[in-house]
């Protein structure tokens, strides 16, 4: 019950009316503020979209918001005549394999942490938690050396094997598993279902939303990843989207950056993600909010 805001309607005294006016004023102010901030947030996306459809001279004219006639040719150019689709394929492929392994191995690890009893479990988990605080970059030089010794620099395999664990995902799943009522897994144990079957037939169906959050957040992370993949790959045809887009930008730069094409390329990479997010935003946000419980 919110006692403070609801005015009693029958008492339509001038005092009440002025209170209503103040409330209305605040609502209007709030909406104006929200719309202004919304425009600021969406502006780079809109500016990208309209710039992608302009000609080069039109682009130089700041006073012009919309292109005179949309240059769909720019999109055609990046879609069929540039290496960007190849980079998108690379990112999709590497992320899919990486995330598939992360989810299966992470689920097994989290299952062991919650439902199995063994020596050293606490120490194992303390170490894993410790890794969560480590900035990834601190491991880059040794990881680079390991990959070069394994002959995996500049390969898909190298990109994938160096990223097989998602510590974030392990914590996310562990938290979801720990909240399950024990009766279910105990019943499964009485049925003599093996641990493997218990995990995928009992635990997984009950924690499906957490799995989806894990997959989405980890997938986006892999897909967008820039620094590490750029360090360990050199061949252009192996670039992930971020590195590829930068390459595309620099190569065009020799004759003065071709901004309409760069914007069309950015749009090609950003828009599918925005669509994916629009459809599944609930799961992104649920996964993130659970993260607060881990560190907080």
């Amino acid at each position: 019950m919110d006692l403070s805001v609801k005015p009693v309607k029958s008492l339509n005294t001038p005092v009440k009316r002025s209170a209503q006016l103040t409330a209305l004023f605040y609502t209007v102010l709030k909406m104006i503020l929200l719309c202004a901030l919304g425009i600021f947030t969406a502006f780079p996306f809109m500016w990208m979209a309209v710039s992608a459809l302009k000609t080069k001279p039109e682009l130089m004219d700041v006073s012009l918001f919309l292109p005179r006639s949309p240059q769909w040719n720019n999109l055609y150019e990046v879609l069929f005549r540039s290496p960007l689709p190849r980079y998108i394929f690379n990112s999709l492929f590497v992320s899919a394999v990486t995330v598939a392994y992360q989810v299966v191995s992470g689920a097994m690890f989290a299952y062991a942490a919650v439902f199995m009893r063994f020596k050293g479990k606490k120490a194992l988990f303390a170490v894993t938690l410790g890794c969560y605080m480590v900035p990834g970059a601190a491991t880059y030089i040794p990881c680079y050396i390991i990959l070069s010794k394994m002959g995996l620099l500049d390969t898909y395999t190298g990109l994938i094997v160096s990223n097989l664990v998602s510590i974030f995902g392990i914590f996310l799943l562990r938290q979801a598993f720990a909240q399950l009522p024990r009766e279910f897994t105990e019943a499964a144990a009485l049925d003599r279902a093996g641990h493997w079957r218990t995990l995928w037939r009992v635990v997984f169906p009950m924690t499906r939303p957490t799995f989806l959050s894990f997959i989405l957040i980890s997938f986006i992370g892999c897909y967008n990843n820039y620094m590490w993949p750029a360090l360990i790959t050199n061949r252009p045809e192996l670039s992930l989207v971020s590195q590829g887009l930068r390459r595309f930008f620099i190569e065009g730069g020799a004759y003065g950056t071709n901004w309409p094409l760069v914007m069309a390329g950015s749009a090609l990479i950003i828009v599918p993600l925005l669509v994916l997010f629009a459809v599944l935003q609930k799961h992104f946000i649920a996964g993130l909010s659970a993260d607060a419980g881990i560190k907080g």
Partner: protein
Amino acid sequence: MKFTLRKNLTVAAFVLPALIPLAVFWIWPIFNAAYISLTNWDYMTAEYDFVAFRQYEKLLSSGEFHKALLNTLVFCAASAVLTIAGGLGLASLLHRGFRGSGLFRALFFSPWITPTVAVSLVWMWIFDEKNGIANAVIGLFGLPALKWVGSSATAMLAVIIVTVWKSVGYAMVFYLTALDKVPKSLYEAAALDRASRRQSFFWITLPCISPTTFFLAVVTTINGLQAYDQIQILTQGGPAGSTRTLLYLYYQLGFEKYDMGRASALAVTLLLLCIALSFAQNLISKRMVHY
């Protein structure tokens, strides 16, 4: 006996698929980095000398480290404060749902999922000195055109704007959850005592959400320590080193100059900073549980 062996094998089968990569690509590299930081290895040659803490001495006394440390502090502090304050502001505007509030939430959060490299390219075009819209907009308010990423005076500002734009929705998501958890009875009691809106914000809302604030302070600071993508695209640490953060310096030392010893010393320093921050947050949040 047979039973325990089988049980141990099962445990191993469940733990190892994640533990092996974790050990190879996280745990071992941390110790390895600590070891390399005690040498003068240059990556090109096989030989190197053990130099104890000399790399740390040289690093910590060098001017470029001091400048990068200062840049990092400015960058982390400014982006953390603006992200947190902005996130709280947005969440306060949105947490009492109204028609269309879901749309605003999604909109404010959306930059967080987009690739930093791609959006930094878009921002770079916005910040373009001659034809960028940023200068056109500030021109409307009668302000002089800025050089943005082209000048050491404003490059950091541009990097901070992009960072805050991208992460403010992330902070908002956490505050939305936190604001929902504040007990309504507290506000009712305050209303009976005729507390003003401002009073109940400062004396009820802020203390109740303080664990979230601390969590976000640490997370955004740690993210700030690790920021690379937007700097690489917008400024490459320049002009004149004005946006070179510790992480960017690490990248330049390790992967441009191949000074592996010095770079590893910097990596270990960064690592210790992150661990210290996490512990501080844990200690403080244990003492400040308000719900």
